[in-house]
């Protein structure tokens, strides 16, 4: 049985546990600022967008962050490490309410709520960004990976800058 078939034949309970672990690993990589590991959660031909809810609901295509390939995710990581100027910060992501909508072809459609908390040097921790993940997940090399990940955020006013991925 191939890895993909193994996932296809999983019970809903088993699949949920797999997904919970997957999202926990994803959030941990970012929370721990292992940004170099982040593109590895995606297939090469992926889409990753952070998009204000007002644009998403009106069908406006503009995203705050628009990546169309894993290579572009690598470019973002290089920018975070080498070119961008920003204040030191911690960002912690809470992923809850994971819902499996079902398989669409070879992709699992998943929704989840996320909450990103930001801590700056001289300030108290604050809610930085919150919204919904709208994801398509496939199996590649025996592992779950994002083919598409949309972070549709409710908090329309971004507090200053959005530097790290969500």
């Amino acid at each position, binding site marked *: 049985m191939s890895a993909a078939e193994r996932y296809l034949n999983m019970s809903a309970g088993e699949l949920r546990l797999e997904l919970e672990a997957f999202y926990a690993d994803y959030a941990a990589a970012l929370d721990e600022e292992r940004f170099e590991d982040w593109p590895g959660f995606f297939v090469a031909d992926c889409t990753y967008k952070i998009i*204000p809810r*007002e644009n998403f609901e009106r069908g406006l295509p*503009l*995203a705050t962050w628009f990546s169309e390939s894993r290579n572009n995710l690598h470019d973002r990581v290089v920018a975070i490490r*080498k070119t961008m*100027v920003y204040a030191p910060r911690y960002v912690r992501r809470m992923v809850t309410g994971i819902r499996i909508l079902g398989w669409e072809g070879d992709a699992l459609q998943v929704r989840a709520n996320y909450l990103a908390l930001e801590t700056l040097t001289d300030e108290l921790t604050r809610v930085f960004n919150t919204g919904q993940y709208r994801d398509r997940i496939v199996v590649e090399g025996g592992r779950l990976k994002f083919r598409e990940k949309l972070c549709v955020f409710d908090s329309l006013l971004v507090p200053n800058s959005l530097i790290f991925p969500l």
Partner: protein
Amino acid sequence: MGERPTAQWPEGGVSRIPYWAYSDPGVYAREQERIFGGRSWSYVALEAEIPNAGDYKRTFIGDKPVVVVRDAEGGLNVVENRCAHRGVQFCQKHLGNAGGEFMCPYHQWTYDLKGNLIGVPFRRGVKQQGGMPPDFDPANHGLSKLKVEARHGVVFASFAKDVEPLESFMGETMLALFDRIFDGRKLEVLGYSRQLIPANWKLMFENIKDPYHASLLHVFLVSFGLFRADQPSKVVMDSTGRHGALVSWKGEQQKTTDTADMKSLKDDFKLNDPTMLQPVREFPEYTVVMTTLWPNLIIQQQSNTLAMRQLVTRGPTSFELAWTFFGYETDDDEMRLRRLRQANLMGPSGFVSADDSEIMKFSQEGVQPYPEAAGVMEMGGRDWQDEPHMVTEAAIRSFYDYYRKVMDL
């Protein structure tokens, strides 16, 4: 309100900017009154956002809420977002369609799309009791209306009844740059981006009027040759100094002794996915034009990414930067995609713009605790005039020259 501050502008004219100007509540109140409430045209909307009768956009001039609405005859109206009865901010959505009227939810006073009061419940009382006095005339209680002018799809409004016409307000130089982007073609809104930046609003104008920083702070721009001190460029202003534009175009670029000053230049930085930066020549002559229009607008043309950046003040130490990205109705899918890709340079996550919002916060954190100190704006001289290069802070000086006149500081 808006009293003249007791602190004096430092010696040195506009080559010194006092740090109290970035945080003093009195200065802020005076700015609201004299700048945003004064004889100026503030950007409020693109016509493409409100194409149909009843379409409205809720926005702000300075910190005052207003609504831009298209009436049944196709006319544009801008009214204060404040019920004439008890001051309720009746419109609460960024964009929508009002149908034929606005109704305040509190006591259901109703206004037509031009802001005229057309309904007051129980005006004649109930069972001969109460009601408005017999001489209450709805004609005297409409929404407060602003002056409105639109040019090639861009809508401006003013609180001042005696403001000069929009064309002369912009002046010849800015008008030509404006018409270069807004040439009469219908616009297509691509989407919005909003940031709350913890800094005084003037720091945003300073940032965009300052080409000096762009070739130093923005490693990304520099590394990809998108904006460098050694490329042909100019800084232009209108005759009053209140508006300005940074203009640059593509030229020969190589590492020279001048670029050696740019410590941030990283020749070895290559994109893994180059599709983000594949601009096409779209407009005559210039590849980058950043226009700053007094008192609340930045018009961005960075290659193929176009945006209005509207400044909404939120007190002396914070402002909202509201971005409206757009293209043209005639854009094909490829051009639209190109604009969306290049938009990655801009906004709160922009490869370039995120540097600016971070730096503005650093600036506020440095100037606010030291109101007695002053900034030094001497790059390129101590006065201002158009310059055929970008090693100058002239457009910042010109801005403050006009600012001081309006503010009587």
